[in-house]
C-alpha cells in the first residue's frame, strides 16, 4: 500500500500508476504524506468512536453521571494541530505545483489539437499524428488547442493534466523519464464519445530514435497517394466515429455508396453529393442536414482539414461508392477490401 521499497521505486503502487516524469516523484511524495495523515486521523476517529460506544454504552438499570461538556484546552488543541497540518500541506502543495507549472526554457513544442472526439498532435515540422511521441529526458511543452468544446489532456503516469479550452491556448509541460507507451485520456466531459477520446504517448528511448520516427512519419505522410491519405484521415480526423463505411448507421450517414448519389435533406430539398457539396458540407455541416439525422456534426475549418485533406477524403469516399464516376487516376475499383480500415479509430483502442 505505501511503497517503501527501493527497487522499482517508480513502478505502480497500490494507489498510483508508475512514475514516468520529473514531477511525478514530488507529487507522489505529497500524496503519500497526505495518505499517512488520513490513515492516522481516520484510525483515531474510528477507534475512539468504537471504543467510546463500547465503553460508555448504556447498561439497563444503571444510572450514570456523564462527563464534562466543554474544554477550552481540547478545543485549542484540535483546532491548532489541524491548522498546522493544513498550512504545511498548502505550502508544499503550492511549491511543487509551481515546479509543475513553470515551463523550463528550450522545451520542445508540440501543439495538441483536441476535437470531439479525437486527439491530434502537431509537431514543429507540421506533421500531425493522432498519437504523441516524445523523446525521453527532454522537456516538452504542449500548447493546447480545442476546435469545439472543453477537453482535458491527462497523462496519468506523468501526473499532468490541463483543460483544453476553446478560445484560449493553455499550456502544459513535462519531461518524460521512462521510455515506453502510456495512456492519454480526455478528462473533461465532451459529449457522446468522451470516453473514447483516448490516445497514447510513446516515449522514445533517446533523441535519435525520436528524430528517426518523426522523419519517417513525416515522409510517409507527405508521400501518401490521395486514396491512402484519405483512408488515413478518415480514421485520424475522427470521421470513423460517426460515419461507417459498411452501410451501418452510426451518428451520421454511412459513406458507403454516398458519393455521387442524391441525398434528401431535412429542409425537403435533394442534394447531389459531389465535390462541391462535400467541400461545403465539411466547413458548415449544419447548413443542410441529411434527412433522418440530427444536426450534431461539428464544423471542420481549414485548421483541421486543409483543402488537400478534403480532396483526399473525397477520393476515399469515391472508392467506396457505386455512384462515383470511374477514373483510373482518381479511384480504385470497388471490391478491394483488403486494405480497408476498420471503423475503430487508430489510437483509441484500449490496450
Amino acid at each position, binding site marked *: 500500500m505505501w511503497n517503501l521499497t527501493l527497487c522499482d521505486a517508480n513502478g505502480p503502487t497500490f494507489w498510483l500508476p508508475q512514475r514516468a516524469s520529473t514531477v511525478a516523484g514530488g507529487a507522489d511524495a505529497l500524496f503519500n504524506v497526505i495518505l499517512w495523515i488520513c490513515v492516522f486521523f481516520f484510525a483515531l476517529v474510528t477507534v475512539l*468512536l468504537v471504543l467510546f460506544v463500547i465503553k460508555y454504552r448504556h447498561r439497563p438499570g444503571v444510572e450514570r*453521571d456523564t462527563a464534562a461538556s466543554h474544554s477550552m484546552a481540547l478545543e485549542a488543541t*484540535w483546532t491548532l494541530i489541524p491548522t498546522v497540518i493544513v498550512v504545511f*500541506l498548502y505550502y508544499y502543495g503550492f511549491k511543487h505545483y509551481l515546479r509543475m507549472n513553470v515551463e523550463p526554457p528550450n522545451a520542445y513544442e508540440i501543439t495538441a489539437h483536441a476535437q470531439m472526439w479525437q486527439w491530434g498532435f502537431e509537431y514543429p515540422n507540421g506533421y500531425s499524428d493522432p498519437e504523441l511521441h516524445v523523446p525521453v529526458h527532454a522537456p516538452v511543452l504542449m500548447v493546447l488547442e480545442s476546435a469545439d468544446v472543453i477537453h482535458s489532456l491527462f497523462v*496519468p503516469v506523468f501526473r499532468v493534466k490541463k483543460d483544453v479550452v476553446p478560445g484560449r491556448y493553455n499550456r502544459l509541460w513535462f519531461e518524460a523519464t521512462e521510455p515506453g507507451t502510456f495512456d492519454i485520456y480526455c478528462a473533461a466531459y465532451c459529449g457522446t464519445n468522451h470516453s473514447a477520446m483516448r490516445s497514447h504517448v510513446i516515449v522514445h528511448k533517446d533523441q535519435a530514435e525520436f528524430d528517426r520516427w518523426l522523419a519517417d512519419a513525416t515522409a510517409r505522410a507527405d508521400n501518401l497517394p490521395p486514396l491512402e491519405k484519405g483512408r488515413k484521415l478518415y480514421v485520424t480526423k475522427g470521421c470513423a466515429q460517426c460515419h461507417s463505411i459498411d452501410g451501418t448507421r452510426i451518428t451520421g450517414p454511412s459513406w458507403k455508396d454516398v458519393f455521387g448519389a442524391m441525398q434528401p435533406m431535412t429542409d425537403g430539398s435533394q442534394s447531389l453529393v459531389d465535390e462541391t457539396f462535400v467541400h461545403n458540407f465539411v466547413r458548415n455541416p449544419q447548413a443542410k442536414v441529411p434527412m433522418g439525422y440530427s444536426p450534431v456534426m461539428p464544423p471542420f475549418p481549414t485548421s483541421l482539414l486543409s483543402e488537400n485533406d478534403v480532396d483526399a477524403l473525397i477520393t476515399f469516399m469515391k472508392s467506396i461508392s457505386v455512384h462515383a464516376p470511374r477514373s483510373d487516376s482518381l479511384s480504385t475499383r470497388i471490391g478491394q477490401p483488403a486494405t480497408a480500415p476498420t471503423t475503430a479509430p487508430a489510437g483509441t483502442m484500449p490496450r
Partner: protein
Amino acid sequence: MSAVTGPISYHGPVLDAEHAAGDNYLTHGRGLLSWAFTLDHKRIAIMYMVGVCFSFFVGGVFAILVRTMLWHPLDPGSAAATKSFDLYNHSFTLHGSVMVFMFIIPAIPAILGNFVLPMQLGAKDVAFPRLNLLSFWLYAFGVCFFMYVLFSGVLHAAFGWNVPGGYGLDTGWTFYTPYSSSRAQGAVVAATLGAFILGFSSILTGVNFIATIHMLRPKGMTWSRLPLFLWALYSTSIIQILATPVLGITLLLLCAERALGVGIFDPALGGDPVLFQHFFWFYSHPAVYIMILPAMGVISELISTFSRKHIFGYTFIAMSSVAIALLSFFVWGHHMFVSGQSPLTNAVFSLITFAVAIPSAIKVFNWLATLYGADIRLNTPMLFALGFIILFTVGGLTGLFLGTLAVDVHLTNTYFIVAHFHYVMMGSMLFAFIGGMYYWWPKMFGRMYSERWGQIAFWIVFIGFNLTFFPQFIAGSRGMPRRYASYPVQFVSFHRASSIGAYTMGAGLVLVGLSWVHALRRGKKAPDNPWGSNTLEWRSPSPPPHDNFLVTPEADDPYDLSGWKQDPAGGGWVYDAERAAKAAALNPTTLLSASGRKRQPRRHGDTEAHPR
C-alpha cells in the same frame, strides 16, 4: 441575561376537547385542497417529503442504470457503443441533476427544517406561512420541468421523437459551456429553467427561516440557547439567500446564449467558457455547504440525545457553522485548478479551501468528545449518526488531497473526486437525513418504527455504501477518469465491486423506505418524547396538534437532559421537575483540572453580578 436554568413550566399533555378527540395536524381539515392550500408548516413538510423522496427514487434509478452500464466496458468503435454511450451520458447527467437540485439541497431544510424549526422555537408556525407554501409549489413546479426533460428523453429513446427544444439532458449536472450552450442536443433550456425555479424555492425558504429564528424565539431562548439544528439552518439560510441568485442569473445567461445566440460563454460567439465555470461554481460550492450544514445540525441533536449528555463544545459547534457558511463563498476556484487559471489564483483558493476544512474538523472532534463518558443508546438514529461521523471523516480527509495543488492536478476529474463527493453528499448528508427521519418520525406521525428493521437497514446501507465508493478512490488515483461510459480493462474489478455495492445499498435504502411505510401503518403508538430530548418540539403530543403546542413552552438549555427520566409504562421519557432541580444543584458539568481539583466553569448566563 438571567442565570436561571431551573425547572420549566411544562405539564404533560393537557386534555382539551380537540386533543381528547385525537385531533392532530394530520386530521385537522380533510381533503386534497386542505393540503394543497395549507399554511401549516408541518403539512408543507410532509408534502415536501413526498416530492423529495420521489426525486431520490428517480435519481437512484439513474444511479443503478449508470452502475449497471459500467459492468462491461464496451469497445468504443461500434454503433451499439454510440447508442449505449448516449444513454450513459444522459443517465449520469440526470442522476446528478435530479439528486443535487431535487433531493440533496431541499431534503433536510424543507422536510426536517420545516417541520421541526418552528417547534424547536416553541412557535405556532414560521414567520411567513404563505411564503412557505409558495416555496413548496415552486419546488413542485421546478420538479415538473425536470420530469419534462426526463420524458422528452424517454420518448426519444423509445420512439425516436425529437421534441422541440431538445430531448433528455447529457451535459453533466454542471452544464459546462460551450457544450451545453452550443452542442448538446438535450433539453438544456427546460432543465436550467427548472433549476432556476427550484432556486427560488430554496431562497424563499432561507428568508423564512432567518426571519423565524430572529423573530419567533420564545422567552428564555437567547442565541446561546438556540439548538444546534437551528444554528445550522440559520447558517444554511445565509448561503441560500446569498448564493442561489448567482446560479439563477448564470442559468438565465446560459439560456440566452443557447436560445438567442447571445455570446457570453461560447468563444465562437465571442464569449469565455471559463467565465461560466466561475459563475457556476460561485453558487455550487456554497451549495454543497447548503447540503452538509443542516446534516451536521441533525447530527448534533442525535449525538447529544442518544448519549444522554450535553453536547460537547456547543459554542464551537455553533460558531463553526457560521464560519463554514462565510468561508464557503471564497473557495469556488478549487473546482477549476486545471482550467488554465493563474497559479496565484490557484494558491489563494487552495489556502482558503484548507481554512474551511478546519471548522468541520472541530465539529467531528466535538461530537467524539460528546461520546466520551456518555450513556449511549444505539437506536437507529444513533447508528446513522455514528455512520455519519465515520463516513464524513473519510470524505473530509480526502478533501486534503484535493486542496493540495500538486496532488489535485492528478486527481481532479477522476473517480477520486466522484468518491470524495459521494462520501460527503451521500455517506454524510444522506445518513444524517435518514437518521433525522427516524428520529423525528415518531413526532411527525405518532408512530414508532421497528427498531430491528431500522438497524438491519442501517448495516446494509453502510456496508453497501463503502463497497460502492471506496474502490472508486483507488480507481481514481490510478487514473480512471470520471464521466466515462467505457473504460480500459484494468479498471474492471473496481467498477464491478462498485456496482455490487450499489445494488446492496439500493436494497438497504428500499428497506429503509419500507420500514417507514410499515411504521405508518403498523407502528406502535409513539409517546410525546420517545428519546428524552430537551429541545422544545418534544413538549408536545406525537403527532402535534395543528397549533403545535397545548402549553407554550419556555426555553432552557436545549442540551440539559437531566430533567428527563424514562417512563416505564409509556416507553418514552417524561419530565421530572424535582429531578431537574436536584441535577442543577449538583452542577453536573464540573470540569476536572489537571490536578484533579474541581473547578466551576463559566456557564452561559454567568456574569460578575450574578455568580452561580
